[in-house]
């Protein structure tokens, strides 16, 4: 796609803050989420899950359960298709164990019954004989050559040698001469940093309602970030054609990447096919923690060299990520992001993927980046402290900018890192005084942002209003932003446009709502669809005036003669053209299909002040400011919302959130009581500063904003805590016992 350099500047609607179209439904309880749909004759499905971290399944006896009155269908892995490769196979095998249970909570069988109580009673009647196998849940243990093999057959050629079969892939990025770089340094610091696995923590558990006939034709309602991808996965797993299955995305109660894949949907479909009734399946919270897709945990070796005046001479990292019992690409993403904020002559990052007896990781907001950048930013901060340099000045000195060859290969176009750093530097927060046991930390953050396959259709209604059909679930106000972009382009008021998220049969393919792609890619397609409609409307006006269509232009919602030569005509409003359209050639619509590239990378900088209680290790976040380049903030409220929400998820990650596995390989905190996401009273205000460095790849300059914001908090808070207690912290979360131990260790 050619870059669109006529970036529009003079906006009427973009940048305002109108109410969102789905708002009233959401404040009155009317909005329909995944678990809010029912169907006549509906059955309820429940899963039997492995209580063991790793076990051979010797037998599954369902006879007694089948005999229970009210039980309509029972399935095991044997009821799924037999496809032998690819991501759909991994998704299938992650949902339901084949011959071995690979993690605590792994599905073993599923029941559909006339109600939940019967389904649960049936689960208790299913007899599974297990042979318990040795398990491994931690990275270092899983890498040992003699470690129990979690899931054989995934080792790629690039996997490092000398380890167990759990070490499955490695991806390396970088350029320049590391040895020469380190030789120029006045100070080199090497450290190993660790982060725990965290969960997206969306408040709505996975839920679906499936209905499939014996002919294999199905309907699926579910909460998902991508109805098209769910369709692809389910079709492959069930062995049906995509046209057989229609998937409708419900309102979605949070996803953050965790709803980009399937966890229950194929099960509900197969049960429905087998039982001949619609089947509703809803995960409970324990299942969400145990058997959806948390993020990776990591161990990262970092070595960075710096000159006395703060120039980074070389940077090197090895990132070891475990993401459960199946391979993933997070190591590939993490290795690319690690040093992205810096303009370096010598840099190298290698990301390694390790399998463990844990659930298969799913995307979580900027997957792979937060832990990678945490490790780098913690070491950079330590160098600043050691060399007595201002940490913002050091970032500015080394910041990637337009023309920088990035650490992962491409050369950056217009980017906003320097602007965000400069904004942070002059912000009152950076100069505010601090009290005892208080300190300030900062970190940069980065995310690529995605584009991808996108289809949008835009219809001009006869009454002059506009309907937009798009295919990306709205996870944070995107219907509002899309309506705004259409209204802007068409020159009509925002409230004349209504955008809906369509099912898989009502619009062409759309990739998942991920990679912060929606406002960028769907927005771009919407603008192009609007332009197509405008072209048609100009044509109609030309016809009505009896002039050449090239002699008509579109301005502020009106077709106008292009100039004096075109003739003297009263401008025709969109509404007028619409009302006459039946007589001028029929309905008017525009549509656009694209595999969008040109997504602009986005950078952010976070500043945080903390106070650490030296006697308990408790960290209080006192003040927080997010600086981020949005490219163009279409609806600033929702941009701020993304910045604040990401920051707070990162605060949770830094301080308290973690998957805790016992020696038995079982997850010990599968609930919100002990998986501690931040609550309202934990937090100060989260201040935001939006910067707008237009992305040349989008007509209005939009960059994605949803993911970058979760990246900096980890290091920002770690740096603040480290400075407050005078000891460098090297592990997340910085739970009070860890912090207190560090304080005591320093005292000797």
């Amino acid at each position, binding site marked *: 796609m050619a870059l669109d350099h006529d970036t529009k500047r003079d906006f009427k609607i973009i940048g305002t803050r109108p109410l969102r179209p789905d708002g009233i439904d959401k404040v009155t309880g009317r909005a329909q989420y995944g678990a809010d749909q029912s169907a006549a004759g509906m059955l309820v499905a429940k899963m039997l899950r492995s209580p063991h971290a790793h076990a051979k399944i010797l037998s599954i006896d369902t006879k007694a359960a089948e005999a229970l009155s009210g039980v309509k269908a029972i399935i095991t892995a044997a009821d799924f298709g037999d496809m032998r490769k690819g991501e759909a196979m991994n998704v299938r095998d992650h949902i339901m164990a084949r011959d071995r249970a690979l993690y605590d909570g792994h599905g073993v069988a599923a029941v559909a019954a006339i109600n939940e109580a019967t389904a649960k009673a049936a689960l208790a009647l299913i007899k599974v004989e297990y042979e318990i196998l040795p398990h491994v849940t931690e990275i270092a243990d899983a890498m040992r050559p003699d470690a129990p093999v979690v899931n054989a057959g995934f080792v790629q050629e690039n996997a490092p040698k000398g380890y167990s079969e759990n070490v499955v892939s490695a991806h390396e990025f970088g350029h320049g001469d590391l040895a020469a770089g380190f030789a120029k340094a006045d100070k080199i610091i090497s450290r190993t940093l660790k982060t725990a696995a965290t969960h997206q923590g969306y408040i709505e558990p996975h839920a679906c309602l499936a209905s499939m006939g014996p002919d294999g034709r199905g309907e699926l309602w579910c909460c998902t970030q991508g109805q098209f991808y769910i369709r692809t996965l389910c079709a492959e797993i069930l062995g049906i054609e995509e046209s057989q299955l229609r998937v409708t995305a419900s309102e979605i109660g949070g996803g953050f990447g965790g709803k980009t894949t399937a966890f229950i949907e194929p099960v509900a479909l197969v049960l429905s096919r087998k039982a001949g009734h619609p089947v509703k399946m809803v995960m*409970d919270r*324990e299942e969400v923690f145990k058997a959806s897709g948390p993020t990776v945990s990591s161990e990262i070796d970092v070595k960075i060299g710096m000159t006395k005046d703060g120039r980074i001479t070389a940077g090197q990292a090895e990132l070891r990520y475990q993401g459960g019992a199946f391979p993933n690409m997070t190591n590939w993403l993490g290795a690319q992001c690690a040093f992205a904020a810096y303009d370096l002559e010598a840099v190298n990052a290698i990301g390694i993927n390790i399998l463990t007896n844990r659930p298969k990781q799913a995307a979580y907001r900027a997957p792979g980046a937060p832990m990678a950048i945490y490790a780098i930013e913690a070491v950079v901060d330590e160098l600043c402290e050691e060399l007595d340099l201002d940490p913002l000045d050091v970032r500015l000195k080394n910041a990637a900018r337009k023309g920088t060859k990035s650490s992962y290969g491409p050369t950056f176009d217009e980017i906003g890192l320097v602007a965000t750093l400069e904004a942070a530097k002059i912000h009152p927060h950076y100069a505010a005084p601090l009290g005892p046991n208080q300190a300030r930390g900062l970190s940069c953050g980065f995310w690529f942002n995605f584009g991808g396959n996108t289809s949008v259709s835009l219809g001009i209604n006869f009454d002059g209003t506009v309907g937009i059909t798009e295919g990306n679930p709205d996870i944070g106000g995107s219907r509002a932003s899309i309506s705004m972009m259409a209204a802007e382009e068409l020159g009509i008021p925002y409230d004349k446009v209504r955008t809906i998220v369509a099912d898989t049969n009502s619009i062409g393919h759309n990739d998942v709502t991920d990679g912060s792609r929606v406002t960028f890619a769907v927005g771009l397609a919407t603008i192009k669809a609007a332009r197509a409609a405008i072209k048609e409307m100009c044509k109609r006006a030309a016809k009505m005036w009896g002039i050449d269509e090239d002699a008509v232009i579109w301005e502020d919602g009106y077709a106008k003669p292009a100039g004096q030569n075109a003739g003297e005509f009263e401008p025709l409003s969109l509404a007028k053209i619409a009302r006459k359209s039946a007589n001028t050639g029929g309905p008017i619509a525009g549509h656009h299909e694209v595999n969008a590239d040109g997504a602009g990378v986005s950078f952010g900088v976070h500043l945080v002040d903390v106070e650490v209680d030296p*006697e*308990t*290790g*408790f960290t209080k976040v006192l003040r927080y400011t997010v600086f981020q380049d949005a490219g163009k903030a279409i609806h600033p409220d929702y941009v701020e919302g993304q910045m604040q929400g990401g920051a707070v998820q990162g605060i949770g990650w830094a*301080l*308290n959130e973690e998957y*805790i596995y016992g020696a038995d390989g079982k997850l*010990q*905190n599968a*609930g*919100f*009581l*002990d998986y*501690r996401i*931040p*609550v309202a*009273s*934990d937090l100060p205000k989260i201040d935001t500063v939006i910067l707008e460095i237009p992305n040349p790849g989008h007509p209005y300059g939009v960059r994605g904003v949803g993911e970058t914001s979760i990246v900096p908090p980890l290091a920002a808070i770690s740096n603040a805590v480290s400075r407050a207690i005078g000891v460098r912290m090297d592990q997340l979360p910085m*739970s*009070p*016992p860890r912090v*207190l*131990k560090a304080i*005591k260790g320093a005292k000797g």
Partner: protein
Amino acid sequence: MQYAAPETTAEATRLLADSPGTARVLAGGTDLLVQMKFGGLAPDLLVDIKNIKGMRDVTPEDGGFRVGAAVSGAEMGEHKAMRALWPGVVEAVELIGSTQVQGRATMAGNLCNASPAADSVPAMVAANAIARIAGPDGERDCPVQDIPTAPGKTSLQKGEFITSIFFPARPDNASDAYLRFIPRTEMDIAVCSAGVSLTLDTNGTCTDARVSLGAVAATVLLVQDAANALIGSKLDDSALEALGAACSAACNPIDDKRGTIEFRRDVTAVLAKRAAKIAQSRAGERS
């Protein structure tokens, strides 16, 4: 499962005593319903005590207060006189869960759930509160600290349940405080906790004290050495140090997902010291 909501104590004890299977008292349900959903608990009978007369009352008695077994945290928090007399107990009850949990959770439920981390229990133990128990053989009184015997276990016999908890009168220059440590600011279970109740004489010297610790042993601990460290002192630094040392020494904690042994030992001492200072200043204000 059956649900019963008797209107008299006698009927409740009869239902509990006669039930052939697992029978449970239902107060606020904030432990019970969670255990039924996620903990594999499947009672045969629930006896809801909230409809029994008097269960929801806080009544003055002998200069103290008798708190009905079904009084919720929110109701306790609204009782000004009880708060003035036993501020440490009320603040402990108010720490239980969220506003929503407060709307339902009871002190008696907190006690009978018998979690070593229960927030109101150390405060009640420090207050020397007395539980009144109804049973098939009539009523009896029992110090709160003798109710829980192990995690999830109580000394109550089949058919017995707590009808009220009595908080005695106290001199003017006496007060109490409760502190717990949690990793967030709300919605967590105590990693460790301390309750201190003390009486001062007119010179500010501590004449009487009770110090209790939560979440550092199988049941709440009443630590006499810790109380002795305070008695006779004006809570000067050396007394507080001795208090902390006695608390750390008395702890017998475990390593678990919520904290380490080392952390619990250290922080228990910190909390006890801080709670003692708060109780001291409250006592000063009342004198």
